[in-house]
């Protein structure tokens, strides 16, 4: 990672933050879309103790929470399904490093942060229900990582609860992969052979990958970019639109029979009417800091050029409306099957023209 003057990084650390964005990898945008794709509410390891872990892997995402090189995380967002709202649920938040190989490092020393014994709000309602939880670490107390690990994990640690799911207990919203074997009619939609995207972090036994995505992720100040896969033959979204989860990361363009298209969705709570530019590259490019690309300050690094290999390919310009913009990039049936095996990387900039402050979104790969 290219170094950046420490003074500027330190100054950024004190910049007042108006809002944060949950970086969630799920078929729909849980902040702005009606979520119709949820297969089930479930736990990482039935009713036993385990961490539900969302994986952020540099093979798929870069620049999430980029604060000019360091990674800055402001909290954890998740949807907590409670089978009995009138009894509060207890959970830990955890962000941990990846193991040398695949999956999380479950040792205590791999924990970047653990906040123990948080509880859900009070309620007199004995029925099941859901809390959309934003657990903020605080602004000056945000979690700093010097650079992005190769892969790291953001999670909710659930204690064992024998009452789940019969009378009580805390679970998470999840969208099952097609091959999950759960019989889910809605959920993720991806090509065959896509890896499991989340993990069950057990404390005594080894962790294992789980075949679903969660409404779970870190709270960050970088704008979000997600690629949405478009498969007109699928009803797994439960509504019209693009699948912003696994279908965007692993679309099927084989032509046997699917030839998915894709779009890009940029979202930002901080500059909800900001100007947007989206660019692309073939594969992730070396990170590069642009000093004078736009008037004012541009926060973050480009992962789509121009470190050495050329300038980013500008694909589209637009503006956010109420915090989101969908940019269609490839209609179904339009991507040549010869491009199978190619990685396209997309990244954008959200520019708040009122204060001349702009910020790179995360970059996401599309593994064609």
């Amino acid at each position: 990672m290219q170094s950046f003057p420490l003074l500027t990084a330190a100054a950024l650390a004190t910049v007042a933050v108006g809002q944060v964005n949950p970086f969630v990898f799920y078929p729909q945008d849980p902040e702005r879309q009606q979520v119709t794709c949820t297969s089930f509410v479930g736990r990482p390891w039935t009713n036993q103790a385990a961490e539900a872990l969302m994986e952020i892997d540099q093979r798929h995402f870069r620049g999430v929470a980029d604060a000019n090189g360091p990674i800055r995380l402001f909290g954890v967002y998740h949807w907590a399904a409670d089978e009995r709202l009138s009894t509060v649920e207890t959970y830990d938040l955890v962000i941990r490093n990846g193991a040398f190989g695949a999956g999380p490092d479950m040792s205590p020393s791999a924990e970047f942060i653990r906040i123990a014994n948080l509880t859900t709000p009070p309620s007199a309602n004995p029925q099941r229900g859901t809390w959309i939880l934003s657990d903020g670490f605080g602004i000056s107390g945000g979690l700093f990582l010097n650079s992005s690990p190769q892969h790291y994990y953001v999670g909710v640690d659930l204690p064992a609860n024998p009452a789940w799911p019969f009378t009580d207990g805390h679970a998470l919203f999840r969208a099952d992969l097609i091959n999950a074997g759960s019989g889910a009619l809605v959920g993720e939609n991806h090509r065959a052979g896509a890896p499991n995207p989340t993990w069950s972090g057990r404390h005594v036994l080894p962790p294992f990958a789980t075949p679903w995505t969660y409404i779970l992720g870190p709270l960050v100040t970088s704008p979000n970019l997600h690629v949405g896969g478009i498969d007109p033959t699928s009803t797994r979204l439960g509504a019209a639109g693009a699948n912003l989860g696994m279908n965007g990361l692993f679309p099927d363009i084989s032509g046997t029979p699917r030839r998915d298209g894709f779009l890009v969705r940029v979202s930002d709570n901080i500059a909800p009417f900001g100007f947007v530019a989206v660019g692309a590259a073939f594969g992730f490019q070396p990170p590069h800091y642009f000093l004078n690309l736009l008037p004012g300050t541009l926060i973050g690094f480009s992962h789509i050029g121009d470190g050495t290999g050329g300038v980013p390919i500008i694909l589209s310009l637009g503006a956010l409306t109420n915090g989101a913009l969908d940019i269609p990039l490839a209609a179904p049936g339009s991507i040549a099957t010869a491009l199978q095996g190619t990685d396209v990387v997309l990244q954008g900039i959200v520019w708040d023209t009122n204060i001349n402050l702009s910020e790179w979104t995360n970059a996401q790969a599309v593994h064609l």
Partner: protein
Amino acid sequence: MRSLPTVAAAALCGAAMFSHWQSSAARCAPTLLDAQITDAVVTVGDAPRAARADLPADAAAERAPAEDRSHLLELPDGSSCATLNGAVDAAPLGTYWGPQPWSPIVAIERSSAGIDWYRHADGSFSTTQMVWRKDLGRMAAMTRVAHPGPVAPIAPPDLAEARR
């Protein structure tokens, strides 16, 4: 002109501040602002400004005590409220409220876990609390928001277990 909901919220904030003042006086000496909020709810923002209006700016700056805002929680409507559960230097509530429309505070409720929460008119809850941060080596404030959400079916039993 303050709207009625704002006044009601201010009253609750005043009550919370008073409660906080009483329950944690040893940890947090009441400030000038605390007293004003407790004594006259509707003058939370106006009284300090009015008191300084007849003074030259420099003199006002010299005479006015520095406000201790460490026990205040900034709300998205621009007002402030007492932090809950003894939190110090909590992030503004708007940081974590999300894109939902702001909903005013209507009550304070204590959970069975002993945590005080603000209840909002739309059914949301919010709170602040101090937590141990091993990465910082100290206690730090959290600001937390819980909005009610939809429900979804429960996963088939033992799916994950069956895969082990």
